[in-house]
């Protein structure tokens, strides 16, 4: 492990949404949706944390609160040692230069009425980084950096392919020279051949600029190729967190195991021992008591304890954390 302080240090992040209210919105909220329920992690400078989970696990909410695109309910997020959640608006804006986000759907995250050039110049103007000929040079350099033809600068988003749009989204994030980028499912909407291009681009940019990534995905195979550390979320909580190789080779949580087994392997001869989970992900407005995973858990030793007691996220081997009562025992 790195002895220096991590670039990003999230401590006990909580985001609760009040659910619908009775009496035409005037009554008391019926239930609280615990979208994120006490999440902690750190990311060392220049590294990637892969945050994995299914829909409704809270992974995107973590990203949005971390950048204060939505306000957190509780917890702290230290970025370069300062708490993002406690910053006054003026300082927050300055900090936004250092933290950027790349969204899943490049089509809905680009303004359809702005050309690529306008999209890339806007952040330069907002942060007063460059103007005039200087800004033009920056735009040309950015396009080159993300592998887009300079001739595309005057195109509108609808004239570009999905892969090209995502490159514009990446160029826009890079334009303000951030140190930290949240990649929120950046390749989920792309075709396989284009997905590989964009993943390779993100890897190259990380090396070139020593970028730190929080890489959010529902696909463990994609994260395998990008992250040094992996955290698996289920119902607003991290259930396993470890160096990537440990998660893939010795998963400790039964949810991680079934996620791994469910990834389709493109090899008809691969041994297939799919652990098919029964049922659906419960609603975060009404999580089950005890271990949130217990209603779907295929662990042979599952018992009454699991139904009543929430397992803590604890260190099983050095650097490898899991929230399962049986995590320390061999499967």
């Amino acid at each position, binding site marked *: 492990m790195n002895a220096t302080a991590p670039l990003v240090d999230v401590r006990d992040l909580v985001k609760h949404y009040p659910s619908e209210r009775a009496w035409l919105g005037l009554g008391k909220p019926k239930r609280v949706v615990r979208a994120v329920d006490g999440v902690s992690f750190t990311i060392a400078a220049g590294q990637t944390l892969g945050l994995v989970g299914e829909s409704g696990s809270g992974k995107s909410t973590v990203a949005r609160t971390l950048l204060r695109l939505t306000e957190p309910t509780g917890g702290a997020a230290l970025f370069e040692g300062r708490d993002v959640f406690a910053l006054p608006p003026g300082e927050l804006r300055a900090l936004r230069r250092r933290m950027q986000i790349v969204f899943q759907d490049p089509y809905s995250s680009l303004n359809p009425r702005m050309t690529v050039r306008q999209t890339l110049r806007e952040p330069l103007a907002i942060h007063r980084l460059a103007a005039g000929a200087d800004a033009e040079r920056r735009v040309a350099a950015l396009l080159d950096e993300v592998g887009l033809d300079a001739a595309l600068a005057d195109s509108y988003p609808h004239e570009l392919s999905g892969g090209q749009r995502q490159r514009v989204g990446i160029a826009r994030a890079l334009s303000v020279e951030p140190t930290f980028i949240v990649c929120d499912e950046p390749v989920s909407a792309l075709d396989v051949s284009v997905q590989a291009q964009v993943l390779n681009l993100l*890897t190259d940019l990380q090396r070139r600029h020593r970028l730190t990534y929080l890489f959010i995905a529902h696909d*463990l195979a994609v994260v395998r*190729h990008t992250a040094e550390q992996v955290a698996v979320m289920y119902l607003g909580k991290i259930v396993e967190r470890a160096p990537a190789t440990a998660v893939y080779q010795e998963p400790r949580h039964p949810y991680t195991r079934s*996620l791994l087994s469910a990834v389709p392997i493109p090899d008809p001869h691969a041994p297939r021992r799919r652990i098919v989970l029964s049922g659906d992900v419960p609603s975060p407005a009404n999580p089950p008591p005890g271990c949130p995973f217990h209603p779907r858990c295929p662990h042979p030793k599952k018992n009454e304890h699991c139904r009543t007691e929430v397992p803590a996220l604890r260190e099983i081997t050095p650097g490898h954390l899991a929230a399962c009562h049986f995590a320390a025992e061999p499967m």
Partner: protein
Amino acid sequence: MTQPGGNAPLLAVRDLKTYFVTGRGGGTARAVDGVSFELYPGETLGIVGESGCGKTVTSLSILRLIPEPPGHIRPGSYIEFDGRNLLTLAPRDLRAIRGNRIAMVFQEPMTSLNPVFTVGDQIAEAAVVHQGLSRGAARARAIDMLRLVGIPDPETRVDDYPHQLSGGMRQRVVIAMALVCRPQILIADEPTTALDVTIQAQILELLERLQAELGMAVMLITHDLGVVAGTADRVVVMYAGQVVETASTAELFARPRHPYTEGLLASIPRLDRPADRLYSIPGNVPAATHWPAGCRFHPRCPHAWDKCRREEPPLLDAGTPGHTARCWLVVEPQRRRPAP
């Protein structure tokens, strides 16, 4: 499992051409441009390709669900089912087949369900139309179908509306709808793409089980070679409106002969083979209004030579029975360039 060649195909697609007239002088999009393949009884055939390759238009053309205009199926196209050409069938005869003997499951379950009817009504509808079931019998059949697709508590769920179900349950309902008349062919267009990975595993397992129980042939349309590897007996790979390679699943994964298939296989991020950099196919899929001359893959192909730019290769016999590839390398293997 059924080996091709042994018996007659259940469905034969011959030289299917489905074109779309695009607006604003964009020209004609040749979305499906001369596609041929067979589906044999009881097999699972994977149709694989990226967006824009024509796989969905192919499946919609089989059931004549292409909106005309702007689309039209060119004369000379032929889809044989039960000794008849589906493309020239009278609407009445076609309706007797669609939803009854050939059924379809679409990608997004919410858009194939009507939000104002209960799932029971929607499941039974096809059986009422095709088999003239009474109200009571229809309800009983809907409950049976919900049980068949693994929905717990079917007697209660039959009265639910689609919004009361999760995404995975909705897809089960859509599958129940498709199977209510016990079709001979199920066309499943990206049935798991919109679902989470653990739910995807449930649905794939369900389809596998139902196929074994009901003995139908399944045409599985997907962009995901991983899904194909686990479920299909044979695979058709499509690119730019054409079939570029066909083989048994084992053969295709062991010995892909078309550089596009090779590229697709190499660019998948894999759990079992982590790599620092992924292989990626350069460039983008061309537009359907402007397919490249010669071999349509040549601008992105690492092996292309002048012949590829001039002459379009036919589907060539690639050695083992049933394996064909639309690539000149099959006849001139010495042209293959070593991997960089």
